[in-house]
């Protein structure tokens, strides 16, 4: 069964959606979408390094993205530049360096489009293992830091005052972000991975009344996007990443209709 590339892609996509659901909620709550973008851009550098050193891609991307995240934290402490300028600086410079390195690796044939927008054909059985084991680890760690992370998302000082150590939770969450980007890059591509994080979560926000519900709807939204997106990708012969993100946009628009109805009910 795993011989079929489409089944592999489906299993991989489902694994990714289950993890991006809850992480995406935190990205939306903590306003981290540009941070996600920056990590994803830096992933290109990780991929090129993986190729040049014949290293595992997911692992290499994880290392580079984590390094970029740590660099960002240091830069925030040591410079007076605003956060968005630092994010832009890191995002574009790491993307540029990544592309320059690709130029040097002329002996390897790169599928740049696949890298940027995802390629379902590229998903191997090894990738499935990385997605599901890595994903399970991410969810486990997220569950462990849920309370301090969530409390400090609502109010940092309350969490700090009542002894929850929000700084540690934030640092761990940053690493988890690097990890999800690393394991999902083949599916969605590095330009669209942030979309996979925020669109299902944004859709879920429109229809949920509590944080737990938002997480569940976000996972369901991600799963539906993956299934819809992959089938249409097969049907119309489009790249997997854009198809999945377009499907999630479709679900988001549906959720807006729901809002209109509930506003009408209130009146």
């Amino acid at each position: 069964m795993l011989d079929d590339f489409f089944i592999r892609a489906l299993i991989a996509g489902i694994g990714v959606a289950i993890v991006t659901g809850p992480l995406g909620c935190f990205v939306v709550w903590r306003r981290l979408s540009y941070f996600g973008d920056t990590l994803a851009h830096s992933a290109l550098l990780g991929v090129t390094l993986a190729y040049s050193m014949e290293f595992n891609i997911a692992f290499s991307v994880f290392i580079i993205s984590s390094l970029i995240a740590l660099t960002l934290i240091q830069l925030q402490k040591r410079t007076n530049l605003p956060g968005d300028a630092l994010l832009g600086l890191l995002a574009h410079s790491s993307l540029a360096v990544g592309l320059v390195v690709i130029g040097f690796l002329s002996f390897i044939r790169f599928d740049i489009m696949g890298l940027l927008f995802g390629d379902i054909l590229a998903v191997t059985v090894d990738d499935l293992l990385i997605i599901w084991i890595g994903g399970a680890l991410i969810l486990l760690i997220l569950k462990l830091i849920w309370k301090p992370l969530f409390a400090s998302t609502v109010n940092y000082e309350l969490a700090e005052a009542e002894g929850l150590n929000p700084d540690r939770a934030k640092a761990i969450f940053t690493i988890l972000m690097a990890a999800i980007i690393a394991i999902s890059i083949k599916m969605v591509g590095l330009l669209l991975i942030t979309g996979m994080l925020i669109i299902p979560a944004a859709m879920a926000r429109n229809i949920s009344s509590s944080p737990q519900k938002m997480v569940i709807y976000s996972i369901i939204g991600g799963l539906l996007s993956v299934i819809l997106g992959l089938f249409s990708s097969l049907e119309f012969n489009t790249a997997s990443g854009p198809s999945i993100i377009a499907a999630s946009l479709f679900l988001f628009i549906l959720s807006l209709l729901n809002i209109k109805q509930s506003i009408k009910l209130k009146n």
Partner: protein
Amino acid sequence: MSSDQNILVKLNKAGFSLNNKWLVRGVSLQVEKGKIVTLIGPNGSGKSTTAKIALGIYKKIDGSVEKYTNKVGYVPQKISIDWTLPLRVNDFMVLTESLDKETINEALSLTGVIHLKDKNLGDLSGGEFQRVLLARAISKKPELLVLDEPVQGVDFTGEIALYELIKKISDELNCGILLISHDLHTVMSATDHVVCLNGHVCCSGSPMDVAKNNEYKALFGEQASQILSRYEHRHDHIHTSEGEIKKN
């Protein structure tokens, strides 16, 4: 002062500066079990800063803080909840500690907002939200309560009732309370120890001692010390929010 093992938090000449400007410095005070310590002082005198030093929110401080408990309840002066978070009162109650349903209901009933349990936090009025904040802080049965203007925006009768509640909680849970308040009436009637701040400690002591202090008079005016002297005779009854009269 009672023995050392009753001390919950102790500040030794603590101070905090931001951008080379001292917000407050040289503050020494201690909060003990079952005692209410109140910080008073004009705007910008460093009351909230002192509370945050005691709570450990500010870490790079001058002097030292010794904190002997981790069971802390905090009502901050300012809190903004983002609309991106769908958060009901019930979710907010279990933010920093998991509590069972009865504990949550009991705390919300005490502050008179049990009917708002399933409401979205963003839909509450200022006073309602303040009552929820107080309920959350007391629900976890803390050893140390830090209340930064806990009744702001609460209606007049509610204000009195909530201060009575705070006093009652201090007695029942035997917890220490660090209170910041602008209401000198309440401060003087229900407090064990008053610290008068104005960037530094102006004066401190029992409410009566502080009222007689010249620096206090200079800071708050002659009227303020008259308010206090009225409180030498305490009321023997209170008016509850339902309009009943209860004996103290």
